[in-house]
């Protein structure tokens, strides 16, 4: 609680899918775990996500994706993160993610995947572990 260097997380929804209740609830859970969450809202382009992550110097980019486009989005974003020097930033993804895609996402460099139904405790623990 008194730690000055808190984990900063950008919670963003890329693309066109139009509801963010899940992303907001996860933002609250991360707040309750003592993290500072920058909430950037719906319909974010990948350029916006990158530029927000740079300006806010976040440790984690958390994407909520329910459109089915998680594979191309994450592939492009991990490449952009490298290109912009966001090498220390961890990408995590939640939403509607079929189990069989998790390994592919991890191979792309996604640090953790939280498909629908993942407990908040699991999300918090896994994000904390990324910086242990």
């Amino acid at each position, binding site marked *: *609680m*008194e*730690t*000055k*260097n*808190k*984990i*900063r997380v950008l919670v963003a929804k890329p693309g066109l899918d139009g509801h963010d209740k899940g992303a907001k609830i996860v*933002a*609250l859970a*991360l*707040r*309750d*775990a*003592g*993290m*500072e*969450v*920058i*909430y*950037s*809202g719906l319909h*974010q*382009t990948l*350029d*916006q996500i990158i*530029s*927000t992550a*740079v*300006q*806010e*110097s976040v*440790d984690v980019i958390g994407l909520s994706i329910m459109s089915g486009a998680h594979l191309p989005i994450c592939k492009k974003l991990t490449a952009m993160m490298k290109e*912009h*020097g966001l090498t*220390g930033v961890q990408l995590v993804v939640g939403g509607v993610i079929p189990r069989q895609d998790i390994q592919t996402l991890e191979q792309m460099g996604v640090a953790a995947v939280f498909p629908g139904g993942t407990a908040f405790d699991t999300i918090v623990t896994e994000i*904390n572990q990324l*910086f242990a």
Partner: protein
Amino acid sequence: MTERAPDIHPDPSGMIQDILAGNVMAGARLMRAIEAGNPQADLLLGQLYAHRGNAFVTGITGPPGAGKSTLISALITCFRQKNLTVGVVAVDPSSAQTGGAVLGDRVRMQAHAGDPGVFIRSLAARGAAGGLARAAQDICLVLDAMGYDVIVVEPVGSGQADMEICRMVHSLGLVAIPGTGDGIQSVKAGLLEAADVFIVNKNDLPGATSEVMTLEHLVNLRSVPPDTWQPPVVSTCARTGQGVDRLAERFLEHRGFMTDHGLLEKMRADQAANHFNTLVRQMLLDRIDAWMDRHVAGFLGTAANQANVAADPYRAARKLAARLTAHLDEADETDREF
């Protein structure tokens, strides 16, 4: 646990050069180090200090839900149309229970996320009093040194007396919304006295016209010496952007007025003196906090002290505090000359 090793730049002088050249990554990295209390951040800020003073620093304060963030987003658009670059520092509260925060001001401003002429930084207040985060002023210094023309500071949604913002801005806008006050509210002391521009936002709601009149009345009733800036009242609808171009104009007029009357220089000098005081106080308070963390529990560890505290906490506190205040007394005696 939730602690992260601070990012320390391997090449501080290169980092200074990058920041002065407006490099966003370098600026953001220093901001992170400032918030983390990294001792290297102080050294870098010291080197940036000589490069401050180009930015016009404005503040937008007002109650929660008045539309401050939306208004700032519309203001950014207006300033950008005038080819001015804009830095924003937006502060939201931290949870007193967990220390966490959801920083949501940015949601309203995301339209500008891809614009290289705009830098938006969200800060958690982290328990600081007065509506600002402790790091806010230093982060403004970084934005100033990076070359942003206008800086907009948005404090935590304010009550009547969150005056910290006044210590660091050149021009303060106070946002009111229709139907929230009467004539007595507006003659109270506090932020109302400090505002340079009044904004009645959500002017599509009933009561907007009378709110504007109330505030104009307040401004006109004040007895001020001639040639004093008279705060204008601007009616806006931040959501549509209506009236916000006039608001941007008023801020720039205020800057012109202050420059023409030599007020900007005086204000900068006052704020610099204030900043120095704050730095000294903060350094001392940090030491005191650390001392208390180490020793208060120990003091309370003996049965005798526990009994003393239970019987007369005032006396017991004096006794413990005397260990430090004795040194202050001594310093008071010796530090007459520097």
